């Protein structure tokens, strides 16, 4: 148990690529947490995907022992937080376990939308904030301009911002000193009944279910019988430890400390994030305020290319959900795609990460349908339900109303691109809430239907601003909308996996765009194929794919057989990548690509 006055708990807030993980690596190295030999780049991002993409998905924690200039040794607990909007819920958890934050801003890029959202969260959580201007060694660094931006946009005093470079090591000691001096020590009573916040839980292949905790009051000890206050379950603590950054067992965790416990919990779902842990024998009076549970907001269908892989896919989803309680899945049957799962995600990146892990870690070939959002339906008989799949939309005559989710989006862009950004937001049914300038950057706040954002908004935003804009959003509210289901018919039969819900004003345009895209995506068949978009029984757009006229090798003699056979194998492989719908072969990627709107 550490003297509480010598503890400092902090998280790091930064935009992707602003160097959060490399700063963390330097701090760890500087405190001797790992030898140079053990230092992999970006120690904290332990998943392959995290390291490749340079993003942090799971919050990680590291305990550092720092000998400060005042001669005392401090325990610094670092909680690395994800930088992406999808994983915002992880951010709020990390913040609630700390007293301060390190705000890392790229000295050449300046403040981005994501940083903004997270730093406001930190301010709300009463955090003391230490500003760091990273990449100060770059020729393009403009520390004074970025300082001014921090003051103008965020409203923080940036006069004592630390100039640092994770690359050269400049300023790393200043950061450590500032953490000790500026951040308050946590408060808590070691004599009081145990009250600890369950910050995170995950499954470790060797250690079983790991539970990350922050102790408020009392002491957590090995052998103690604990109670999870929300679930009421009791467990005996088998191991108490900290990450340094490797897991190290210790005897106990006192007030203000962050560490992990193993307590014979069987499933990650039984260690509920946000729950309060207390001692069974001497319970605390009140549970700590938990977190709002993370709810999936984006849904898509995932189907195995090879129908025999259905059970492999189910096992894979179950395994992944052990570690990520934030995504949901349930079995789904599609006339076009067969047996698969309707999966719910926190956002688009989350969806991409899960899809990539399925293919990489489980070697699964998947077809995914275009993502959709959750609609709240009210029927004429007064029944209400959430619609996760456009294909399940009930008959309009039985519908009283549909409500769709809206978000509040914050976009930061160089002012050169402001016009295109505003056009994009307007096209997507946006309502402008705010528009401010800070230097040559503009910050716009829009209310947008999530439905308009969920698919390709971010790609479009990136492309019209040449990658310079940043974007963040938070769910705002559900609002009624004049929404219709557009079905896509192939040779007269509706393809369930291609149906979508859109605003009535956009139905015709989108229907036509999808038919046109499908015309490019679906190869010519042996017969004419009619593609139609329809609302109910009314056809609103139509395209025709002409029949294949010619597909024959002109010259084929003895020397051509080997090559011809290879071609035949390739053709058969290609056919496997198709889904038969009636007699029409539809390429797997069409189910996703067809709904991408591109420039319209």
């Amino acid at each position: 148990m550490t003297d509480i006055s010598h503890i400092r708990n902090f998280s790091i807030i930064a935009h992707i690529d602003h160097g959060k993980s490399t700063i963390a690596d330097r701090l760890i190295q500087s405190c001797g947490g790992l030898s140079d030999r053990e230092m992999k780049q970006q120690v904290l991002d332990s998943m392959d995907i995290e390291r490749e993409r340079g993003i942090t998905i799971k919050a990680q924690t590291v305990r550092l022992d720092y000998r400060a200039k005042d001669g005392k040794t401090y325990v610094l607990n670092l909680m690395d937080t994800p930088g992406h909007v999808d994983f915002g819920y992880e951010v709020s958890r990390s913040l609630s376990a700390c007293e301060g934050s390190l705000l890392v801003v790229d000295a050449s890029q300046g403040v981005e939308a994501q940083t903004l959202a997270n730093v406001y969260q930190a301010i709300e959580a009463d955090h003391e904030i230490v500003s760091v201007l990273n990449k100060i060694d770059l020729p393009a660094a403009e520390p004074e301009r970025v300082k001014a931006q921090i003051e103008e946009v965020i409203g923080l005093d940036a006069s004592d911002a630390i100039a640092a470079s994770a690359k050269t090591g400049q300023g790393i000691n200043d950061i450590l000193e500032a953490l000790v001096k500026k951040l308050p020590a946590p408060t808590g009573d070691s004599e009081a009944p145990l009250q600890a916040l369950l910050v995170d839980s995950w499954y470790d292949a060797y250690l079983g279910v790991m539970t990350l905790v922050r102790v408020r009051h009392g002491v957590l000890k090995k052998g103690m019988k604990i109670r999870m206050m929300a679930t009421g379950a009791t467990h005996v603590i088998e191991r108490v430890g900290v990450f340094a950054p490797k897991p190290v067992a210790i005897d106990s965790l006192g007030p203000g400390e962050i560490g992990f416990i193993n307590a014979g919990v069987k499933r990650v779902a039984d260690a509920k994030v946000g729950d309060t842990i207390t001692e069974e024998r001497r319970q605390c009076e009140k549970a700590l305020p938990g977190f709002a549970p993370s709810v999936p907001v984006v849904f898509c269908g995932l189907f195995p290319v090879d129908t025999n892989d259905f059970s492999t896919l189910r096992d894979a989803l179950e395994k992944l959900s052990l570690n990520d309680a934030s995504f949901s899945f349930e079995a789904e049957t599609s006339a076009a795609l067969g047996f698969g799962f309707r999966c719910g995600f926190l956002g688009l990146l989350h969806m991409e990460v899960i899809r990539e892990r399925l293919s990489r870690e489980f070697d699964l070939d998947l077809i995914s349908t275009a993502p959709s959002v959750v609609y709240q339906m009210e029927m004429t008989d007064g029944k209400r339900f959430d619609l996760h799949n456009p294909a399940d939309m009930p008959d309009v005559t039985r519908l009283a109303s549909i409500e769709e989710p809206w978000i509040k989006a914050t976009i930061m862009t160089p002012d050169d691109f402001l016009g295109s950004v505003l056009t994009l937001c307007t096209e997507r049914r946006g309502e402008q809430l705010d528009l401010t300038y800070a230097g040559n950057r503009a910050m716009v706040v829009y209310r947008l239907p999530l439905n308009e954002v969920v698919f390709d908004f971010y790609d479009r935003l990136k492309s019209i601003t040449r990658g310079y804009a940043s974007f963040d959003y938070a769910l705002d509210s559900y609002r009624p909308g004049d929404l219709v289901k557009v079905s896509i018919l192939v040779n007269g039969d509706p393809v369930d996996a291609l149906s979508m819900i859109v605003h009535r004003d956009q139905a015709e345009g989108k229907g036509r765009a999808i038919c046109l895209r499908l015309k490019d995506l679906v190869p010519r068949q042996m017969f004419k194929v009619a593609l139609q978009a329809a609302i109910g029984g009314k056809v609103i757009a139509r395209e025709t794919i002409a029949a294949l006229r010619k597909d024959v090798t002109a010259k084929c003699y003895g020397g051509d057989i080997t090559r011809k056979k290879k071609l035949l194998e390739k053709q058969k492989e290609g056919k496997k990548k198709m889904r038969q719908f009636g007699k029409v072969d539809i390429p797997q990627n069409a189910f996703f690509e067809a709904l991408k709107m591109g420039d319209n």
Partner: protein
Amino acid sequence: MPVSDTNPDLALYIHWPFCRQKCPYCDFNSHVRTTHDSAEFGTALCLEMSYMAKMLADRRALTSIFFGGGTPSLMPPAVIGKIIAHAEKIFGFAPTIEITAEANPTSVEAKIMTEFYHAGVNRVSMGVQSLDNDILKFLGREHDVAEALSALDTVRHSFDNLSIDLIYATAGQTLNDWQNTLSQALAFDLPHLSLYQLTIEPGTVFYTRQRNGETLNLDDDHAADLFELTQHITAAAGLPAYEISNHGKPTAQCQHNMNYWRAGDWIGIGPGAHGRFTIAADEYKNLQRVGTATRRSPAGWLQSVQKTGHGIDNRTHDGADAFAAEMIMMGLRLTTGVSIQQIETICGPRGEWLDDAAVTQAIEDGWLDRNQSNDSGMVTDLRATDAGRLRLNHIIAMILR
């Protein structure tokens, strides 16, 4: 794979890899060289022929020989003579043997054909390619129409069994353009025509040009129109298609090529030549059809033959399914089609290699036909319809397992 009761025909292919220049559409193994010793290559070809003959399950009389290339009309007649004589010595000749040489339609090569005739060649296939000077230029050919016609005239003095090649469906070619060329060609009253739609093959000059955005051949829809026109005109003129790109009087079909399409045995010698034949039964118990491919580089091939007696650098063994696939893939190119029963006796039950439901569907859709008798009396219980032949790659991929 069980041995069939009667071994199929045996053919011999000889590849002469040298050309005076490389044509921009040609992806055959051809090399522009002037330093090679033709006699030395001739000797090596005979050596390799003997080597392959020893691999065979049995010694059968040859039913055809084909000199391809490259440009075999550049071979010294003495070398041709030596090779033909060697082949007769080690295999023996069937009484009706067909011996073809490919020739460029230039005056020099036309004259040499007379000497080829005396060396034993009895069929010539001339690469006329077009009867339109602009198209000949586009195709990078050395000759013009006048020279080709005069060469054709010369060759006709020695050969009755004569064919010309034409390339069509080049960019911008209209139905009318092609109809004119084709009518002219038919007016020569030749027993055989090979009519190829221009295909852009990887590794050619045309391929690079196409990738750089040039349009060199007709799109599939227009090409299909020209193909259909070709079928009508040639049939009316008594030279109906007997294969996708080959037309002939019933008595003048190219025996050598028929052997490929019927998946018979053939030996392939020379740089980059392919062979497929039944090997001695004791060497491989179950897989008796072997595929050979020789080294493509003329110098490398020559060195290899001189050292080891052969230039084979790749050898494959086809199982029953692969052999069945070859028979279907090649056989459906013929208007007569294939005999499924015959393939079954060689390759085992059709369920292993043929998707019967897909065949039924293709018949229903009008791409395939069943139970067609033909003039030769051969049982061919599956053939592609005219419409089906034009889309054959697709149909084959559909029906093969």
